[in-house]
């Protein structure tokens, strides 16, 4: 394919998307409305202090306790901006600690509400309905504490089953949104739930994948059956590399079983930051070729959310780092995988989950030049971070799904911290966008940015 034609089309698509950003500030982080985040992105110590505070908030037993933690973190920040010095002074008195604790807790709750749509699926329905009216579908993700016992795995399974019921019920009454409900390959379920295998079993062991598979299989099978009965889509999230083999094998194996030949619609995740993700895609496509399922497997292409974890784990063990360490290499791989996925259609359905305007524009442009229809691809954004991009995509007539975490503050904290860390990283696309990097540079091919 003519590279120049692709680049030209990417520029065109990217410009159209940028023009459609609802807020001309075009800055999702500004939406968090927290100057602390800007400061955090600039100062590593402050960033560490804030994230450690956010992380511990749900475990604190009183406002006093909260304030003591906040002060403990802040005293490790060497260059304290004036508001921090004021906070440290407040922590010296009991009344001051109470006020500081209350302010800290309120700030964290405020941030959490940007990312987490409700305490449970029922509470999330107003938001999901509003999104649907605005032309945006959703995939609900149930946040929870880590699963370390069988009882916890059972509880998570039951919560997922209940969520499927709630979602199927609620979405049945919503008005028609043709773009969100069908593509060239057929109907698309309205209700959509993302689940984590690590929550469906306490027995995921990196060196013994079969063990976690055996334990998670009955619970996942029940959810697939229920999704099939309700006509809902079940998406199985990917987590760290430690569990990739267990999760992918388990899902493909279950979906191969005759009882699931006609449903439900289901999907997996491909993480472009993994160096060996092209081989993982081979595995997925080989499976899809031999599969006789009615619903093509949905492959959600993401960058991957466990970058720090993967790097740290590899360095501590002396292993080759399994993820790309240069952003440009990762972005280039994302585009190569996008192209391969598009070329593999209709074997699989393609979902592009990225907040990187270049990656998204590339998918749109590449598909058009391959002769595809715009609705061949679903674009996915994260609630709270990709809201503006989601609306811009919808305004351009593209199919958008928002990934909507649901859960209480305790359960949501790990998710929240990950999102915050991910998006204050200096290499983050959102960080560049927030810093006012010109559009042409944001849309430049990976590795060619100046």
């Amino acid at each position, binding site marked *: 394919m003519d590279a120049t034609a692709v680049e030209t089309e990417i520029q065109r698509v990217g410009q159209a998307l940028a023009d459609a950003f609802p807020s001309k500030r075009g800055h999702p982080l500004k939406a968090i409305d927290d100057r602390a985040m800007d400061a955090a992105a600039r100062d590593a110590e402050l960033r560490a202090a804030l994230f*450690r505070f956010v*992380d*511990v908030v749900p*475990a*604190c*037993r009183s406002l006093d*306790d909260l304030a*003591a*933690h906040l002060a*403990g*973190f802040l*005293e*490790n920040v060497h260059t304290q901006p004036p508001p921090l010095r004021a906070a440290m002074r407040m922590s010296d008195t009991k009344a001051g600690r109470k006020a500081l604790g209350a302010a800290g807790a309120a700030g964290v709750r405020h941030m959490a509400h940007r990312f987490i749509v409700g305490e449970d699926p029922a509470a999330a329905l107003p938001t999901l309905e509003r999104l649907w009216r605005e032309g945006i579908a959703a995939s609900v993700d149930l946040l929870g*504490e*880590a699963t*370390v*016992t*069988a*009882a*916890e795995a059972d509880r998570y399974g039951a919560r997922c089953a209940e969520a499927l019921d709630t979602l199927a019920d609620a979405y049945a009454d919503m008005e028609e949104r043709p773009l969100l409900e069908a593509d060239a390959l057929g109907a698309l379920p309205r209700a959509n739930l993302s689940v984590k295998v690590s929550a469906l079993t*306490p*027995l995921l*062991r*990196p*060196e*013994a*994948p*079969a*063990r976690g598979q055996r334990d998670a299989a009955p619970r996942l099978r029940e959810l697939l059956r229920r999704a099939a009965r309700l006509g809902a889509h079940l998406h199985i999230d990917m987590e760290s*590399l*430690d569990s990739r*083999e267990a999760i992918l094998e388990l899902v493909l194996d279950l979906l191969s079983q005759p009882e699931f030949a006609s449903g439900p619609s289901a999907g997996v995740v491909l993480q472009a930051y993994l160096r060996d993700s092209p081989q993982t895609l081979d595995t997925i496509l080989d499976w899809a070729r031999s599969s006789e399922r009615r619903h093509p497997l949905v492959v959600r292409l993401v960058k991957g959310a466990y970058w720090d974890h993967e790097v740290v784990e590899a360095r501590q*063990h*002396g*292993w080759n780092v399994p993820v790309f360490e240069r952003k440009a290499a990762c972005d280039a791989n994302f585009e190569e995988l996008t192209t391969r996925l598009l070329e593999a259609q209709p074997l699989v359905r393609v979902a592009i989950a990225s907040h990187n305007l270049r990656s998204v524009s590339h998918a749109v442009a590449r598909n058009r030049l391959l002769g595809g229809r715009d609705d061949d691809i679903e674009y996915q954004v994260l609630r709270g971070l990709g809201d503006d991009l989601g609306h811009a995509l919808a305004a351009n007539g593209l199919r958008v799904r928002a990934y909507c975490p649901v859960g209480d503050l305790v359960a949501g904290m*790990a998710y929240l911290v990950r999102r915050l860390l991910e998006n204050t990283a200096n290499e983050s696309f959102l960080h560049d966008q927030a810093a006012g990097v010109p559009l042409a540079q944001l849309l430049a091919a990976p590795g060619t940015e100046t």
Partner: protein
Amino acid sequence: MSLTLPPFANEPVLELRRATERAKLAVGLGELVLPIRVPVSIGRDRRAGEELVSTDPGRPERIVALAARATPEDAGAAVAAACDAFPSWAATPVDDRAAALLRAADWMRERRAALAALAVRECAKPWAEADADVCEAIDFLEFYARGALQLAAGAPLLQVAGERNELHYAPRGVCAVIAPWNFPLAIPTGMTAAALATGNTVVLKPAEQAPGCGLRVVEALRAGGVPAGAIALLPGEGDAGAALARHPDVATIAFTGSGPVGLELLRTAADVAPGARQLTRVVAEMGGKNCIIVDSDADLDETIPAIVESAFGYAGQKCSAAARVLVHEALHDTLVERLAGAVEGLEVGPADAFDTDVPPVIEQAAQQRVQRYTAMAAEWGQLAVSRAQDVPAEGWYVAPVLATHLPPDSPVLRDEIFGPLLTVEAVRDVDEACDRVDELSVALTGGLFSRNPRTVRRVIARSPVGNLYVNRSTTGAMVGRQPFGGNRLSGTGTKAGGHDYLLHFVEPRVVTENTVRHGLVV
């Protein structure tokens, strides 16, 4: 010094999350030929025998090694031979000694799967732990080779006109290495390598449960170029070890094992034997009763898996294993409920199955000991997990136990049980937890889970243990990263895998030369 080496780096463990790596280990096990015959090996002499038998703890009828059983006379002969070999090995340039250790490391690297497989069979080390044991053995060789090169430079002294001052380190002589079975390759290799690197000769007595692994250590060193006379192998039991310890020509005893044996060695060494020309130095690593403190702000999602790993990895048979959890009363019930659920999910099974979380304990006596303490815990406290029936009938299996509500004076809270038995106690606050840790006469490892930096600092200041781990598991010390060893009655305060470890194997000698002749500095 002409030998220059790249900086030390830990030997990477296998990436067992990848199927291809797991397959390598399975091949290693398939190629393992048993039983291994282990002679008493002194210099060029080898005396075969079958009196000492090591078996697979998971299948006791499977014989892993048939060893000669060293007698006290063998011990005497071995020390005599090591004495004879000492002058020549001590005079061997440090570069050559270091190079021999590095070649021994290479020998082990080429046989990683086979060595791990032997540890799986002889000591029921599960795969990941067996592989880590081989890596740690390699690390010790690499680390102490570098350390010896550095030590050979001596230490700087103040110099004044007219005199030349020098401090250099000389080897002490014959070192008796008395090794345990729980790190059957790493620990004998480490103690032996430290002694050899610094120019001592060694008589190695491996644990009676692990003569096969001991043989491999000696083979590696000899294949690397350590002269046969400089390293003797003495498979045997307590009497052989005792004979070594009281031998007047043993200059250093390097011991890792139980408290009672260690204290006996210290007593023996302190009693200067008639005819002895040197004080015997003892480097001893003994047991612990390791506590993990959990404050009210701990993240249980992280804490529980870390506690499980610390207490039940290798069936609790690491000196660093956690035995007691001291948890803030506000979290006690939640922690016990979740921890019990996690323990119930542990798979008890053979060491060679990747699925296994808790392998069998080393021998029948250990099984009975754990059962005895379990019964005691059930009588005086409560068992939060009880699944005694749920283990394989053959082999030295015991079910993992979680016990609560024990009286403070219970032996279950005091004695080192060395098995998969963990207790939980509620405390008012972290200070009370520190008080309970402080009451103990042992101080090897400790753990703390807290997200408050001030609490962390407070506990660090009060903690007597040799190795304190904050917000992580208490096991898995790495050479060069977590120098390992305990305080109080847990050991002599020496740190294996640390920069000052080699100093225990040498004696400093200072030479001052007058450089003034006829009033002139020449």
